[in-house]
């Protein structure tokens, strides 16, 4: 089922957690909400589930306006970060819970519930463990029970909050692959929250990058990697070099006119920041007049990459370059060597003259959960 989100607003006390979110999710899509803690990604997920009452805006499931519906009426499958399994119930009873609490006339008979639970156990590859209690399961198994429990009610959408957050790296990788194939098999519209960019980009059809209650960018893995639309997205997906520059009459002046690069498309006139990733910088010869000259101040070999710290002669800033290594074409760089580099790809963003001050009531040392708790009391 497709989901439409329009102008969704949420405050916790004076903390503005969601600032007018608009988002369309196609039926059957696997979507990631990606962002740092405090970005509002979990709040948005909970708002879709109806676990957070909204201060404004609308959530629609297909043609159904879900805004006024209770959590129970929304019929969403929600998988919690810490699984939230019922500890006193067996795996079987956990999965059957959603069916067994239905009002009498809608409740399937025992045989149907049995059959359904067994199908789900097979689907999540936990056949034979139905009599176990959650305490007797591994983290990955608990996660799959939580998923089966959510699927039992045949939800309109499947929502997962940091689904792999509490698992170790190996299990996480396996579960990720498995979830991808499960999604292909079942076709549920699925939204998951993560702060792990790798997870989001590997798993999702589209990624929603969020920051401080707004959506920074929505796009496929390729789109957010190749064309980050804001400095935040650049920063969040890797560690770009930021070079102050100016655009004058359509030309980019880098480092006080020492280097001129063709501007990509229509660039804003005036002060800008050039964002370029360490692997997008190329070492060039002395004849390249648009290059940035500098000195190597740091070399570090990490696996198949060589990282160089380069101190620019013009500004004294240190930028980082990544070169493939070993590479016969690459000379053995030593600290103190002169080097000339040039960005092969970059993006320009207008440079704010003064940064906006923090909005009142926003305490960056508090997590969203703490804001949520505070506003409850």
């Amino acid at each position, binding site marked *: 089922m497709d989901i439409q989100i329009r102008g969704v607003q949420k405050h916790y006390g004076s903390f503005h957690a969601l600032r007018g979110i608009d988002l369309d999710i196609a039926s059957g899509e696997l979507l990631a909400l990606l962002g740092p803690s405090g970005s509002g990604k979990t709040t948005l997920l909970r708002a879709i*589930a109806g*676990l957070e009452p909204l201060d404004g805006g609308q959530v629609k499931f297909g043609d159904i306006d879900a805004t006024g519906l*209770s*959590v*129970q009426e*929304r*019929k*969403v*499958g*929600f998988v*919690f970060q*810490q699984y*939230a399994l*019922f*500890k*006193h119930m067996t795996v079987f009873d956990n999965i059957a*819970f*959603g069916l067994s*609490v*239905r009002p009498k006339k809608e409740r399937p008979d025992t045989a149907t519930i049995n059959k359904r639970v067994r199908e789900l156990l097979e689907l999540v590859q936990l056949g034979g463990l139905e009599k176990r*209690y959650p*305490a007797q399961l591994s983290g990955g198994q608990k996660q799959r029970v939580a998923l089966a*429990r*959510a699927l*039992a*009610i045949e939800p309109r959408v499947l929502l997962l909050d940091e689904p792999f957050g509490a698992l170790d790296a190996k299990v996480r990788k396996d579960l990720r692959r498995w979830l991808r194939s499960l999604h292909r098999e079942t076709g549920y519209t699925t939204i998951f929250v993560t702060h792990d960019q790798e997870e989001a980009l590997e798993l999702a059809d589209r990624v929603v990058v969020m920051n401080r209650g707004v959506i920074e960018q929505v796009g496929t893995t390729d789109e957010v990697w190749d064309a980050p639309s804001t400095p935040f997205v650049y920063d969040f997906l890797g560690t770009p070099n930021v070079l102050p520059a100016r655009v004058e009459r359509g030309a980019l002046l880098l480092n006080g006119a020492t280097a001129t690069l063709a501007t990509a498309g229509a660039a804003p006139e005036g002060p800008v920041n050039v964002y370029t990733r360490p692997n997008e910088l190329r070492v060039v010869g002395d004849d390249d007049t648009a290059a940035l000259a500098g000195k190597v101040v740091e070399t570090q070999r990490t696996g198949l990459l060589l990282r160089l710290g380069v101190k620019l002669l013009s500004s004294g800033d240190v930028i980082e370059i990544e070169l493939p290594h070993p590479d016969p074409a690459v000379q053995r760089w030593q600290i103190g060597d002169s080097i000339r580099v040039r960005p092969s790809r970059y993006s320009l963003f207008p440079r704010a003259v003064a940064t906006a001050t923090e909005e009142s009531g926003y305490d960056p040392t508090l997590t969203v959960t703490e804001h949520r708790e505070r506003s409850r*009391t």
Partner: protein
Amino acid sequence: MPGLTPTLGFTLFYLGMIVLIPLAGVFFKASGLGFAGLWKVITSERVLAALSLSFGAAAIAAVLNAIFGAIVAWVFVRYEFPGKRLFDAFIDLPFALPTAVAGIALTALYSENGWIGSVLAHAGIKVAYTPLGIIVAMTFIGLPFVVRTVEPVLREVERDLEEAAATLGARRWQTVLRVIAPAVFPSLVTGFALSFARAVGEYGSVIFIAGNFPMVSEIAPLLIIIKLEEFDYKGATAVAATMLVLSFLLLLTINLLQAWVRRRV
């Protein structure tokens, strides 16, 4: 395991000195009566009445405490209200108050010319100097046991669980009944057992409000004192030994019940 011998040795020595030897003394003294004599003492009408009053009233008080203690714990965990910390401190008062003070205060309140007693007297209910008064005193001293055992467990029940139940379509009463109650139940049983044990052994706060009429409102611990004052040491220890065995059996049963519940959690 290094240090096992000294620590285990100390534990057993301590347990022996403080608990086991005095208890053994009770049985040793009581055994002086012989089986027939013992049986005669504990089946005498007055002793039977006192024992059933002590255990019966304690059971009723513990049930009341389990119900209302659970509600109090719920309120403390889930709600914020002005003066919460003050109320929180009040809960522990029965722990700290000298029991005689509690007894005198309760008697003053519930006697026929006391604040509460006079109102109840109009309704024809007599509290002080009746078994009802004993239940009131036992409930008073037992409440913190339930509140303080249930509270931390209830705090541990994650909101996630309730939200998970709601997303699965469970209505509120289903969540309370099927998700929260089973999680809290073992601690409630513990609180019940502690409150019950305390009430059975309670002396100071009860004897003032009980009136202590033989066969009506005379509790077993008081009967032990009476027998001691009559220099009937063997009779006194016979009653004491009976209370001990009964208490032990009850606590054992409760513990087994709890172990059975825990195994499923």
